């Protein structure tokens, strides 16, 4: 279960990498705004998922 959170985090982080490579390749640095928002959403998503898993396993 927790492995999926790690995988999701890695997928989003790799997405940021894709966006920055795309902005180099096609010379469109405006797309880096999207990368910033993705980084924010990845962190918030990880925090929310861990919070709810911890709630589930509370005795």
């Amino acid at each position, binding site marked *: 279960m*927790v492995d999926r959170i790690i995988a999701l985090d890695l997928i989003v982080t790799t997405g940021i990498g894709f966006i920055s490579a795309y902005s180099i390749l096609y010379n469109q640095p405006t797309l880096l705004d999207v*990368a*910033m928002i993705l980084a924010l959403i990845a962190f918030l998503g990880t*925090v929310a998922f*861990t919070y709810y898993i911890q709630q*589930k396993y509370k005795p």
Partner: protein
Amino acid sequence: MTDIIVGVLAFFGTAFVFLAALGIVRMRDTYLRISVTTKAATLGIGLLLVASAIHSDELAITAKVFAIILFLLLTAPVSAHLVGRTSYFSGVKLWKNSVMDDMEGKYNPETEALGSGLEDETENLDSEKVAKE
């Protein structure tokens, strides 16, 4: 010259992201996966973003890139810590060949009580004091 620097940085960034992806496939348990993914992905993304900043050569873009890198460097350890804490508390086992478990005996799954692991020693000290008196 700029193209060469951008190429080298982007190559190393991609290589580190690839190592992170390899690590999440090959590592044996959750804790090792957390360790590999966080470090390699953060370094790889940082290098890719710096390459993008050098390529664009504008102050606004460079500032934006450094904001993203700073944010990643701040949040990656926090989220890794949260995931590790959650997986330990929800009962994910360590790999059978893992050498040490620092939390062993310091966490009670029934009461969710966390301790330093030194409570027994202090109790012994107290009982010794009582015996001396």
